[in-house]
């Protein structure tokens, strides 16, 4: 067995396979299917300072090789997480990260501050890229100034590993990555969903309640891979790659493009046990190609 350990800044993971926020609940929902301790990490649902009801139903539309969602950050707020969810998820023997969102630099920072107080949450993923909320969310992630303002505020409030999740709905994701690196982000994760929509021809109306939503699944993988490739050349901080990863080969491709770790999202809906298969599949790949450590393949497609 190859050495699967990897790092995101100072955060050590037992392997590169994490679960994407909003696709794996708090992990416990999948405990019948997955030995949660075999995962590199679990990134729990997007959490905000205040409870949020999210967008009205319908929130989902199936597409060719993917799906659209406009959930809109439904969650019970950071205090509920700290009191009720954290005592349960802290017992899981893997890195449990919280995805943090807000509607102003101040609310992001306050949410991050409250999570910083939780000993067993070693990192947060800052969501400046949710396409489904009116205020905040992606609005911050699509300009360098907006992204920098949130990261600056959170960096001042949050001393542990800070990963910033980037939006693909931009002209140059490399520029945004550089802007958040300059404000002290420890890592970037990419991509969040691509903004899209679906229309019901029979009813002559959009399918999703708010009209548009975020596209995920294999349909977005080539876009995500290209963006990881570009960001790898643009910044020195580590990259967490995600976007349509369905199997170990997809995961390896993201690492070859430059990701130090990867997240599996929508694939959890198709196969709730997919994460463990990706872990063992990466191991098989490394053995087959004579690598002793998964770290050897990070960015390896850039060589030569």
């Amino acid at each position, binding site marked *: 067995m190859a050495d699967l350990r990897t790092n995101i800044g100072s955060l050590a993971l037992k392997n590169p396979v994490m679960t994407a926020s*909003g*696709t*794996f*609940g708090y*992990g*416990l*929902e*999948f*405990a*019948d*299917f997955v*030995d*949660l*301790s075999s995962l590199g990490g679990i990134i729990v649902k997007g959490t905000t300072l205040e409870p949020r*009801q*999210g967008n*009205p*139903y*319908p*929130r*989902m*539309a*199936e*597409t*060719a*090789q*993917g*799906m659209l*969602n406009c*959930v809109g950050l*439904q969650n019970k707020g950071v205090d509920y997480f700290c009191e009720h969810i954290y005592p*349960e998820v802290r*017992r*899981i*023997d893997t890195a449990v990260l919280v995805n943090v969102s807000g509607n102003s630099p101040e609310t992001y920072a306050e949410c991050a501050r409250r999570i910083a107080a939780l000993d067993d949450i070693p990192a947060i993923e800052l969501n400046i890229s949710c396409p489904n909320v009116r205020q905040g969310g992606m609005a911050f992630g699509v300009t360098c100034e907006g992204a920098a303002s949130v990261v600056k505020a959170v960096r001042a409030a949050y001393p542990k590993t800070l990963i910033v999740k980037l939006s693909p709905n931009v002209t140059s994701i490399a520029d945004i990555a550089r802007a958040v690196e300059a404000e002290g982000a420890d890592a970037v994760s990419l991509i969040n969903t691509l903004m899209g929509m679906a229309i019901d021809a029979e009813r002559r109306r959009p399918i999703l309640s708010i009209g548009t939503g975020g596209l995920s*699944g294999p349909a977005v993988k080539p876009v995500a891979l290209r963006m990881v490739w570009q960001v790898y050349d643009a910044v020195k901080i580590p990259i967490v790659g995600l976007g349509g990863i369905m199997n170990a080969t997809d995961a390896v491709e993201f690492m070859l493009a430059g990701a130090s770790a990867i997240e599996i999202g*929508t694939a*959890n*809906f*198709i*196969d*709730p*046990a997919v994460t463990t298969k990706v872990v063992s599949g990466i191991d098989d790949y490394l053995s087959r190609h004579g690598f002793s450590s998964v770290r050897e393949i990070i960015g390896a497609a850039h060589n030569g």
Partner: protein
Amino acid sequence: MPIFAHAKAINHIFFGMKKYILDLIVRQSQQPRPGYVLLRLTDPSHPLPAMLPGQFVEVRVDGSPSTFLRRPISINLVDKSSNELWLLVHAIGAGTRALANLKEGDPLNVVLPLGNGFTLPAAADGEGAGASLRASAVGASAVSASPRRYLLVGGGVGTAPLLYLGQELVACGWQPVFLLGGRSAGDLLQLDDFRALGEVHVTTEDGTLGEQGFVTQHSLWLRADADGFARVCTCGPKPMMVAVARLAREKGIPCEASLENLMACGLGACLCCVEDTVDGHVCVCKEGPVFNIEKLKW
């Protein structure tokens, strides 16, 4: 690993029955009517896990390139003696058409059992989990001299889970009375199976079978003993269920409805299938699909 064991223990407390991903085999595929397929599935090597009436499964659809997500399908019947799980599929899209094309011996990957299920009498009489449902059931049985009957009202393919519910009611010594509706006679399926379990009443909108009209217009509701049910359980098109819920409320009978909001994960993770309830947005796949109507904003 003790930590994982603990996570599992928590899971069972917070998330109900243990869930499985199984590769079942199609033992028989029948077409009761054009456009409908009854898949009789089995696990050739193990007894099927425990499942409750009202719960559902998420089926992976292979061989349909345009179908990406699993399809949630209600449990039509579980037959322990033959180790069979029945799924009644209405072939209306590419995914369900692919399921309709399955042949005997084909594998079918399913995640099960999902959701909560209807409240069964044993639970309805007792104390403990799900107290809100219980409270109303106890109240109703006090006024109506403990009727040991449920009224099961289904429309179209929504009748499917009521067969399993009927079977389980009979198994615990209760009497299911079925009220099944469709647009036309051809929409009503498995009538012989229902009749084997209890009294069956039928309505069709075009009058080709049973009484003409909607289920809520059936003469059953006018009978003197129309309120003599411990519970009304309904599954079908939403307008029908809303009307059934209104009638049940008028008659003071506790009522549960099974919703079928569009779903992705089926596990309470993606929050796509939410219903706007008195408790806010809750996942139909996890908190439901069966809801006491008092929880719904109908």
